[in-house]
């Protein structure tokens, strides 16, 4: 059995950032990676996806973008190259093609069983990602026969879908991007959406992510919010990273021909049933977006930046159909595919440590898991709003590597 001090599970941005910090603290460690560096970006994303953050906004510990297109958005191959270059830059100790089979407590640490043999270690960092499993609601079980269920992790491009119409369920970044792409490919798309986060790609001449960065919105910490459970479950912003820097919204989708309906509530007699609350979820999204824009306006005023940026403006309210769809017979509408863009969750099926709650969610305080020497990385709003961003994992890795170091020192002192 091999032995090390700390095992990091997953060589994505979160695991690599943690590795960089542990190396700086001279903590002996390895990263176990089921595939190659940036595996999820390689294998679990659709073809056209680009990052939602601009190239410049990928500041990792000791590494940053140096190319000629700071405002562009990375394709998947570019993202894979970027993270691979990061791993190479500090010789990250990655053990590739090593699948973790189980993590279980052991005297003063953990045993990590893998497809390539077992490890013993003092501490473990779970950096295996927040998006391992696509959520599919129970409603899917009652879906009419002859309609194919597809998750965003299976979806690659419109050509792979059976001829016919498509129902996309979910109005976050994934849902709106897939709806737009599939509609543009000549399929009739219906998008069912509950609460969603409408966000313009740019505002007053600057990328929205730039504004969120400079105003400190992305640095918002878990102690700054009144309800951490709520913020951890906020859907992703309706954004697309495209060369044209376009804004994607329910308005742009409807202009392309997509039918927008309320939240999918279930299926009855071969028909999909949608909530009658579409008008309100659109009103909520418009109000929330305007509060974000208002906060940016106020920041500009405080910083006396008016002369440097475009004048303040507001976007058109979301256009809600006069009579939103409540029922849709999938056969009548020739819908052959339902895509469940209903969120993702992490997979901890291999974690034999009693740190999950009744719903299988990891119990942690800012990434410090309720078991000695066990840490998490890269989860939604784990320590900060930016905890899941390539640009955000560095600060979390900084904080948690220090905590981990203290843990190791404390354990050593106790042993002495």
């Amino acid at each position, binding site marked *: 059995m091999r032995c090390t001090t700390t095992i990091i599970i997953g060589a994505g941005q979160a695991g690599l950032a943690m590795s960089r910090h542990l190396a700086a603290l001279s903590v002996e460690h390895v990263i176990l990676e089921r595939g190659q560096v940036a595996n999820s970006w390689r294998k679990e994303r659709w073809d056209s996806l680009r990052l939602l953050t601009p190239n410049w906004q990928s500041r990792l510990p000791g590494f940053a973008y140096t190319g000629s297109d700071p405002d562009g958005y990375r394709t998947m191959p570019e993202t894979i190259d970027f993270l691979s270059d990061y791993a190479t830059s500090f010789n990250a100790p990655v053990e590739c093609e090593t699948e973790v089979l189980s993590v279980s407590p052991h005297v003063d640490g953990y045993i990590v069983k893998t497809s390539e043999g077992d490890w013993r270690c003092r501490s473990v960092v779970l950096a295996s990602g927040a998006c391992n499993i696509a959520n599919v609601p129970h409603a899917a079980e009652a879906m009419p026969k002859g309609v194919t269920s597809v998750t965003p992790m299976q979806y690659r491009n419109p050509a792979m879908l059976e001829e016919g119409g498509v129902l996309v369920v979910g109005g976050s970044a994934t849902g709106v991007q897939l709806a737009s792409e599939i509609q543009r490919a000549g399929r009739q798309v219906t998008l069912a959406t509950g*609460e969603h986060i409408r966000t313009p790609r740019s505002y007053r001449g600057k990328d929205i992510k730039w504004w969120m960065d400079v105003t400190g919105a992305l640095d918002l910490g878990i102690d700054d919010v009144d309800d951490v459970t709520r913020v951890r479950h906020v859907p992703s912003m309706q954004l697309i990273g495209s060369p044209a820097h376009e804004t994607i919204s329910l308005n742009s989708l409807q202009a392309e021909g997509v039918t927008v309906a*309320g*939240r999918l*509530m*279930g299926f*009855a007699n071969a028909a999909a*049933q949608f*909530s*009658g*609350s579409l008008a*309100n979820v659109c*009103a*909520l999204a418009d*109000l929330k977006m*305007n*509060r974000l824009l208002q906060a940016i306006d106020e920041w500009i005023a405080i910083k006396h930046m008016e002369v440097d940026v475009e004048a303040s403006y507001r976007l058109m309210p979301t256009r809600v159909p006069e*009579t939103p769809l409540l029922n849709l017979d999938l056969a009548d509408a020739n819908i052959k595919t339902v895509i469940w863009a209903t969120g993702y969750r992490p997979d901890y099926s291999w974690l034999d440590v009693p740190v999950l709650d009744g719903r299988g969610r990891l119990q942690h305080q800012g990434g410090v898991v309720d078991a000695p020497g066990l840490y998490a990385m890269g989860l939604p709003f784990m320590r900060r709003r930016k905890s899941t961003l390539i640009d955000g994992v560095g600060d979390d890795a900084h904080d948690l590597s220090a905590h981990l170091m203290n843990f190791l020192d404390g354990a050593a002192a106790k042993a002495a």
Partner: protein
Amino acid sequence: MSELQTAVQNGVNVEALLGARKDLEAMPQAAEFTWKAACEWINGTHSKTEISGFFGLGEDQAREKTFAVETDHPAVFASEDHAPTPVEIVLSGLAGCLTAGIAAVAQNRGIQLNSVKATLEGDMSILGILGADPAIRNGFNAIRVKYNIDAEASDEDIKALVAQSQKRSAVFDIITNPTNVFVTVE
């Protein structure tokens, strides 16, 4: 902010509600409520429904009073119009729920309400209930709720109150989303 909140008086005990939410998150079983009503036919389309106890917080909850809601139909339905129609009671349920929500959210956000008024309209083709056209549903085609609110807040903040109230409203959810209904004969 806390000074502002104590100054605001909408008659909603937000502290108690927030405290209850915290307690119930720790004891989700206690959050399971069952609301009850007992109806008796009087004559014609006239019925009386009595409402008193309910189940919640793990036990039967008694009330000191029993409330009564009567329903009937107007003369154009060849009825005696002793009371509102059931669908008007549904509208009043929606209005009561949304308005209570507005008061609670306003209190929580430190917004003083001066007056809150709502008018409601529910459109219905009665060909549905008469069984004259199978393509027409029995219930409302659409419901419109118009609020007129005077409060110490901006228009945007008032709109946000109304939006948040819908988001947290039981009756809004009951009306906008499907519910399984099991009717049996004992």
